[in-house]
């Protein structure tokens, strides 16, 4: 679906960790992003949105939010517990 270039990683999370089928997972992600389902595969729309939401954007520029920080924001966006984020919060006393 394009992974972090679009919303492929977000749809994959809903399938993997919630067992949601593809159409339902796409709909859920689109609603959380506030865009039509038809736009979640668009790298132009998703690139700008990912930067605004700080959930990692493929870019030459500096300052993109990456790794655990991006996944923390994805966890809040999707209302989904992400294992490594939970461990980060626990290990830093931020839980």
């Amino acid at each position: 679906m394009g992974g972090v270039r679009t919303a492929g990683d977000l749809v994959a999370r809903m399938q993997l960790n919630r067992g949601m089928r593809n159409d339902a997972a796409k709909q859920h992600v689109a609603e959380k992003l506030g865009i039509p389902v038809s736009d979640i595969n668009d790298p132009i729309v998703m690139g700008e949105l990912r930067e605004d939401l700080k959930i990692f954007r493929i870019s030459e520029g500096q300052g993109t939010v990456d790794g655990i920080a991006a996944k923390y924001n994805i966890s809040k966006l999707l209302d989904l517990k992400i294992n490594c984020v939970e461990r980060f919060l626990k290990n830093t006393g931020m839980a």
Partner: protein
Amino acid sequence: MGKILTRYGDGFKVELSEDEVREDIIEGTNDAASRAGVDPLKEDEIEHLLDIFKNPDKVVSVEDGKEVVMTYDGMSSKIRRAHITIDRVQSLQVFERAMGADTLELQHIDYSYKPCKPIVGFELPDLDLLLNSTVAPVFYGAMPNLGLYSQPDGPCPNPADLLPLGKIDEAQKAYEEAVEHAVSDIVFVASAMYEGGVDGINIDTVGAAGDADFLAALRATEILREKYPDLGIEMGMAGEFVLGMHGGLEWHGQRLAGLYPQDQVRLAKEAGATIFGPAINIVTTNSLPWNIARSVTFCKACSDVAEIPVHANLGMGVCGIPLTLTVPVDALSRATKAHVEICRLDGL
């Protein structure tokens, strides 16, 4: 129209007339339907498949909006085995950032849970690096591979030695003993990975050693689901049909030998898997229209009853992909389009 250029299941090219392609599609779907006891493809689905083969373009793709997500097996060895010296974590960063992979999978090169167990402590630092430097969901994957538990490689008597001697009971007991070891190893490794922060476990090539192999995967999945309610678990199969190497094994009252994908997915869901991957064998001497129609028929029946995402295992030698190390893109893209559009898959 002129001849349609397609291939055999071993990848070699063949030119067929439109009538020959249609005939192969019908034979393929009827073969799957009769074996699995499911419906063959409908007339409009046969026509759609025929159109995919009639398309003269080298590469075809799914319609806009029908994109699916991708999961992988043996992912961190794919670039290395092309003789490119790259670290596992780096190779997965390339997959995520250069190739647009939806998910990532860390794996040990000896891709079975048994050899992963003693080195799991050396896997965790790489997992930590990967989780800190990527964004997509991360799996840890390996196979139950029950064969590794038989002598001389493992602790259990070898059923392949016992069966020719007529020692049926002893062979069945050996399989049952191997299941216990495999469940223990899968749960040990998966638990360590979950505690290390992984998003999901891939139990891959399930059923390669028959019904006992499938039982080990179901039991391990059941234990892991109880232990870690949030853990993602993908169960990918080894073949279309669970071989009855033991013959009498049951799980929750269901005999495992002889199950086809539409029943395999039901048990995978019941055990606690969140993604299921059917794998349909290829017949190398038959055409791709025959093979793809056959595979789509099995996978459609699976997807129709599934309550969890279905990611068909489209890879070298399964689900209509030619059995070759360098898969021709015309063949790969046609198999992909056919499976996604006709089966309403969730992923590949």
